[in-house]
């Protein structure tokens, strides 16, 4: 019973293969703990998809070629085969339950919010981003002509408080395997933990108007010590910082000077 064995394999594949060496199936490895788990889930789904999809594809091809017309006789008028129909109802249900179980395990990890070591208030606006480091007097703003950079410590829990000051935007970092909508009137909170230093490009994923295509930002992940020194090197006076943080997005995008985004942050 090839189909049953294939399906059984498909049910356990996401769980068993999680630790094995598999191709990426096109996805990023994910530079956070949650992102890595999502990547493994991706691999599990892909193995399942290839087994079941490939099996079904071959069945279609077999039926299409093997049973092409060879004469004018009328074949047996078979209409039902209840045991077979039950098999291809029940096995997919089992596969779906397996996929769902694996999904819930990973999902709980990705959406969990452990105690943060650092917090950034992110506000998306047409067409740029404002990063406020609460209590640190650091504010970074950038828009289409100059991407802002969010410096973050590696190996620590980073909490993002995500808002939008106008329309719906998407905070999307492909290499972290994560995105979340920034929505007017709603606060979205999520936490991630980047495992490797590096620069991760992010951009707006949800259509937000004219310059949606140009709404990039960078995440620069550095050691915790470098992060601390970056914070102190870029701190404004409390009054300046409060003014910068309170500046509306429209002021930021219309060029009213807040602390401008920098390209060189003096850290390695």
């Amino acid at each position: 019973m090839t189909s049953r064995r294939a399906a059984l394999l498909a049910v356990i594949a996401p769980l068993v293969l999680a630790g094995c060496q598999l191709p990426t199936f096109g996805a990023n490895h994910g530079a956070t703990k949650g992102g890595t788990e999502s990547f493994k889930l991706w691999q599990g789904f892909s193995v399942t998809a290839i087994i079941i999809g490939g099996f079904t594809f071959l069945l279609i091809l077999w039926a299409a070629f093997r049973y092409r017309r060879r004469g004018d006789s009328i074949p047996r008028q078979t209409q039902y085969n209840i045991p077979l129909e039950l098999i291809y109802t029940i096995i997919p249900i089992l596969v779906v339950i397996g996929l769902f179980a694996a999904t819930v395990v990973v999902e709980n990890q990705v959406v969990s919010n452990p105690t943060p070591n650092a917090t950034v208030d992110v506000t998306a606006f047409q067409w740029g981003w404002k990063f406020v480091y609460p209590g640190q007097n650091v504010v970074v703003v950038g828009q289409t002509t100059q991407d802002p950079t969010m410096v973050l410590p590696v190996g620590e829990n980073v909490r993002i408080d995500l808002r939008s000051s106008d329309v719906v935007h998407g905070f999307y970092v492909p290499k972290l395997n994560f995105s979340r909508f920034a929505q007017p009137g709603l606060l979205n909170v999520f936490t991630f933990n980047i495992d490797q230093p590096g620069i991760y490009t992010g951009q707006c994923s949800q259509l937000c108007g004219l310059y949606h295509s140009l709404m990039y930002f960078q995440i620069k992940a550095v050691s915790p010590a470098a992060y601390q020194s970056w914070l102190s090197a870029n701190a404004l006076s409390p009054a300046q910082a409060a003014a910068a943080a309170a500046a509306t997005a429209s002021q930021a995008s219309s060029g009213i000077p807040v602390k401008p985004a920098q390209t060189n942050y003096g850290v390695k």
Partner: protein
Amino acid sequence: MTDLIERPGTESFDHHGGHDEVHHDNHDHHGPSGLLKWLTSTDHKVIGINYTVTSVLMMVLGGALAEVIRAQLVSPTSTLVSFAQYNQLFTMHGSIMIYLFAGPFAFAGLANYLVPLQVGAPDMAFPRLNALSYWLYLGGTISMLLSFFATGGPAAFGWVGYAPLTSAVNAPGVGPDLWIGALMLTGFSAIFSGVNLVATIFYLRAPGMTLFRMPIFTWNMLVTGILILLAFPVLTAALVMLYCDRHFGTHIFEVQGGGVPLLWQHMFWFWGHPEVYILALPFFGMVSEVIPVFSKKPMFGYKGMVFATLTIAALSLGVWAHHMFTTGAVLLPFFSIMSLLIAVPTGIKIFNWIGTMWKGQVEYTSAMLFAVGFVITFLIGGITGIYLASPPLDFFTHDTYFVVAHFHSVVMALVIGAMAGIYFWGPKITGYKLHEGWGKAQFWTLFIGTQLFTFPLYWVGLKGMPRRMAVYPNNPSWQALNQWATVGAILIGISTLLFVINVLVSWRKPIPAGDNPWDANSLEWFTTSPPPHHNFLSLPKIRSERPTWDYNHPDYPALGHGKHAGAETQEKANA
């Protein structure tokens, strides 16, 4: 003659005598003729043809817009169109394809033509409402097309129009209002079509046509009609609210004044996900008619097929928020399991189509090629959809080209299925076949073009390319994949040209089809091609879900009437 039932108001004719000769409608029609007759017609066949032609023209227009989108994306910094024009292009491409082509073609075009024929009825239940439905749809289409000429251009907020990008401040001008108007008009048109479908199927079935003897296409149209009635009023209500926000100072979808932008997404997708199945079920129905006929076998697992359709419809009402996993405001596990479960009945359908071909005599007419191409393309779209039902995977594929590729696999499968329907029922509607050679050339360009178009987009989406980007200057590595997708789109364009050529060739050198060119199953093949004014002059005795086949193959027992009822009926009861 014992198998013939005389229907009130019609005359019977002798099917034993001359089954292939053309029978002219011998009713006396008093009333207008020519253009006025066409304008005032309440005949479901005229309305069905109107719908089909209008919606196929819209498909060509939507496709042309898509070619411009693909041309823009061959270079990361292309300046073929401006940012504003690009946003208008994909908004109108999506809007025309979804609101003006796919739905109206399926649930109002072919369905209008075929459902009364398949259930043995003289017309739809409410012929005037049916006519109103078409004229509302045409009004909506004109409204959408007029928006191209509006000051400030047409709508540019995507076909989903997420609030508050649609507000009077963010999207000023007449263009967005015409978009709203178009959706309201086509929305009401769809609701009336739904009413008509449900009423016709429940109340106008011929004697003997029990629910479980209805063709799968009619079953799917019944379920589609019910879904329309549940889903479309929600969209239409949301559009009224949006219009009030824009013009009367309400703040339903705006934060100022206490509104909730997220409410739009809920209402939109509460329509939008059933809409996916409102689009898909009719095409499932079409290929479920084509595959048995050209395999020379009954639909395998007929009752399972009906059960699967009902299950898909029920589940589809509880999955809308899988479009909203990244909002952080929906219950992830519920919408995840509901969405994953849809794979089960969908899989049943695919296995039933395979089972129908299994040990058959599969004849590759163009219609059958398109039907098999549909199953393969839909399999790809279905499998990639399973990924998107898992929130952690959706988090990094949402709003990327992976999603674009997924639903284009699905909707291109529907386009391929539509072609199966046109090649299959075209002879019934016109009396003439389309040319097979051109049809096969069209199939292969369309099928290969579709895969060449979608596969690079899956890949570039996983690399992180968000949808709706006019340029991608920071990511030149995405260029090659985009160029391959454009090559695929060009092939799809060529296939459309081949279709137009085929229609012209078949027009110049007509190939008469006869009443029943495919030795088909359902009642529409029992009457003439095209059918007379009120469809039937007589009907065969309906003892199974393929009365015409039973009539033409008296040596075989009707399905469910053999020695092994419901199972293998190879033994000939009449022997």
